[in-house]
């Protein structure tokens, strides 16, 4: 079943990769410009009308963000993940909020946490979780959260950190 869909899609789009995870889940990698078209097709033609999630992974070393749209077909009980790899430096992606209104919320989150732009998405720049965040988006892997916390927040002196294994051993079995 999924094979049919893939072969249908292959006629229209260039699928960069097809990863079969299981009989009811497949990940397709499509280029940035055509991914939303493919999702559109999956939604309206193949019945993948439930939008599960949109998430991003920071491939710092490759200079890429990988976006994953997971779609679900409630009739056939199959899922298709559409992966898109976009450039990390100029991170922007075609917005898909016109397909499902909820997509806009995911895009807001990605904008705030990764700094990925989705031009045209509603309320994109409204604060999502962080109110008034400035600087590097915190989910980017080049953001050093420890250094940031140390410099930004008032710390209490005297805090120590222990390795749990040695610390517990010391506490529980001091004589060994």
């Amino acid at each position: 079943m999924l094979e049919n869909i893939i072969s249908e899609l292959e006629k229209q789009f260039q699928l960069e990769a097809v990863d079969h995870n299981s009989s009811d889940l497949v990940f397709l990698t499509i280029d940035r410009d055509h991914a939303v078209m493919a999702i559109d097709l999956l939604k309206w033609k193949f019945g993948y009308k439930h939008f599960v999630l949109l998430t991003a992974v920071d491939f710092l070393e490759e200079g890429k963000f990988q976006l994953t749209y997971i779609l679900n077909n409630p009739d056939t009980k199959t899922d298709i993940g559409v992966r898109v790899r976009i450039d990390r430096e100029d991170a922007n992606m075609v917005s898909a909020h016109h397909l499902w209104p909820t997509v806009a919320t995911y895009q807001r989150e990605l904008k705030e946490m990764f700094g990925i732009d989705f031009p045209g998405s509603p309320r994109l720049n409204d604060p999502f979780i962080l109110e008034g965040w400035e600087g590097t988006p915190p989910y980017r892997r080049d953001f050093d959260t420890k250094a940031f916390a140390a410099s930004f927040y008032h710390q209490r002196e005297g805090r120590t950190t222990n390795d749990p294994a040695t610390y517990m051993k010391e506490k529980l079995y001091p004589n060994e």
Partner: protein
Amino acid sequence: MSLEDLNKKQIVSPDGEHFEVDPMNDYFCQDRPEEVKPVNKIVERFYNWARSESLWILGFGTGCGAIEMRPLMTPRFDAYRFGVQWRPTPRQANLLIVSGYLSTKTLKRVIRVYEQMQNPKFVMGLGSCTINGGMYFDSYNTIKRLDYYLPVDVYVAGCMPRPEALLAGFEELKKLIKAGKAEGANEYANKFDWYKKNQKEVIRDWDMPDYNW
């Protein structure tokens, strides 16, 4: 709820007159808090007894520690025995329990709520996170020590502290109140500029008046 709400607005009156509304000045009371000293020592001791025996907690859970407050209402721990009761509105509460980690976003709300409570008012920090950040010591989004932002009367350490620890904390707080040492509200008023400086350092989109009456 956004910063734009506080921008000045051009308004036309029913008579066609144009005027400006400055939300910050027109909607809010802009005064600073003032210290209110106890009146009389004997009366104050009586009052302090009453205050300590009637702790009204604001039902506001900031973090995971909130889950530890619920058992206090149940037969097993039953904090009511000690005159501890919960109120749904900060106006009527006089004890604010900051229950666990506090993100900067929640800190803003906690400050508002604290300022809306009436003098005398008490703050209890619950869990390691309020003391030094606890397991969130490296989080980009949670504060590391509460007493820089609000005058804390009692800390209850632990991750998480058990309800028994909270009960012990209440007892401790009661002692402090009876001794007349729980003057957090006055301290907040006296060191207002310092607290505000600290608060504004971490809350970058300060979208409210300095003191929320």
